[in-house]
């Protein structure tokens, strides 16, 4: 039973393992496998961007093409959703997009750890984004920023309800933003793991071994699908960041 447990435990992959215990002022700041993979993600992104932009060839090589594509993609996304004024947030949105994208992508490699499958990571991201929106909105527009919660053209009778609803829907943003990314990653990885367990169980079950290739084909298709989800979720996360930042730049629609 104890040998079978790791195969059958689809949650096992999300366990945080402490690699180097560390405690700063009573706060547990140990270096874990999550921290390790964050460092790996940062290293991959830094490698891509630094090496990719160091050549500056007129005819770009592969790395430079990748770096330029990433830049163009995020830049056009920001211009479309938040206008040219949004470009001042380019470094932030680009960092968020690249980190989420690469953590989703690296998490798909077997035996790796998916940083974005931890709700605290995604929630820290979305809380930072919402705090940035609030901070920039109040800094830029002062109390005028509160007009965001007061849509124009609503009858005064309904206004208190609409304002309350707007405030609740604003407060729901960080939660929906973080839960969506976390849920997609968690569900995808659990599904992959369970299909993998099916293969092992069927292969070891006598005559039923004939059925074992079926979930295996499923895994192949699911992996391709997860690749799409990895990109789409990073894209959705980044584009919603732009939409929310747009509210801070132009409140009151």
């Amino acid at each position, binding site marked *: 039973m104890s040998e079978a447990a790791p195969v059958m435990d689809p949650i096992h992959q999300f366990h945080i393992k402490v690699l180097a215990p560390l405690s700063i002022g009573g706060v547990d700041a140990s270096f874990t496998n999550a921290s390790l993979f964050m460092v790996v993600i940062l290293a991959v992104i830094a490698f891509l961007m630094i090496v990719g932009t160091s050549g500056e060839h007129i005819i770009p090589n592969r790395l430079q093409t990748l770096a330029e594509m990433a830049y163009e993609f995020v830049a056009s996304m920001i211009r479309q959703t938040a206008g040219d004024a949004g470009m001042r947030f380019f470094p932030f949105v680009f960092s968020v997009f690249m980190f989420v994208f690469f953590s989703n992508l690296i998490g798909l490699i077997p035996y790796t750890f998916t940083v974005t499958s931890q709700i605290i990571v995604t929630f820290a991201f979305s809380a930072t984004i919402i705090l940035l929106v609030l901070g920039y909105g109040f800094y830029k527009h002062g109390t005028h920023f509160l007009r965001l919660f007061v849509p124009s053209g609503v009858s005064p009778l309904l206004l208190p309800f609409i304002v309350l609803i707007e405030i609740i829907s604003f407060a729901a943003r960080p*939660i929906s933003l973080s839960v969506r990314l976390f849920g997609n990653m968690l569900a995808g990885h659990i599904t992959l793991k369970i299909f993998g367990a099916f293969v092992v169980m069927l292969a070891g079950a006598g005559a039923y071994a004939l059925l074992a290739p079926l979930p295996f084909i499923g895994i192949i298709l699911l992996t391709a699908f997860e690749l799409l989800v990895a990109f*789409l979720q990073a894209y959705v996360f980044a584009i919603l960041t732009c939409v929310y930042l747009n509210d801070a730049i132009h409140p009151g629609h």
Partner: protein
Amino acid sequence: MQDKSDDADELKARLARLANDLQAQRGAVDDETARKAEADLTDKGLGQAMSLGFRVLSEFVAGTVVGAVLGWQLDAWLGTSPVFLILFLGLGVAAGFWNVYRLAVGPQGRRGR
């Protein structure tokens, strides 16, 4: 003298033609990018549809949950259980529906602006 004014006329005509061509070219490029953007929005198929579905789900659930938690905490704070819980649960559901509605009409509203 005659030659020079001919040259100037010809130059003007060429400039006008160039401006026309540039205009046409720019219009064509704009059309193409607009069409491409449209295709990008509609043409991603299953993945796009699923991510939209997930967005609708999470917006709705988050609105409801935030409303309920706000009401619950207000009740706990003011000792008026369950008045605020009921009120804010209703408001949260309304906020969830409002978010979903905005998600559905969003692109058109933005285009109209």
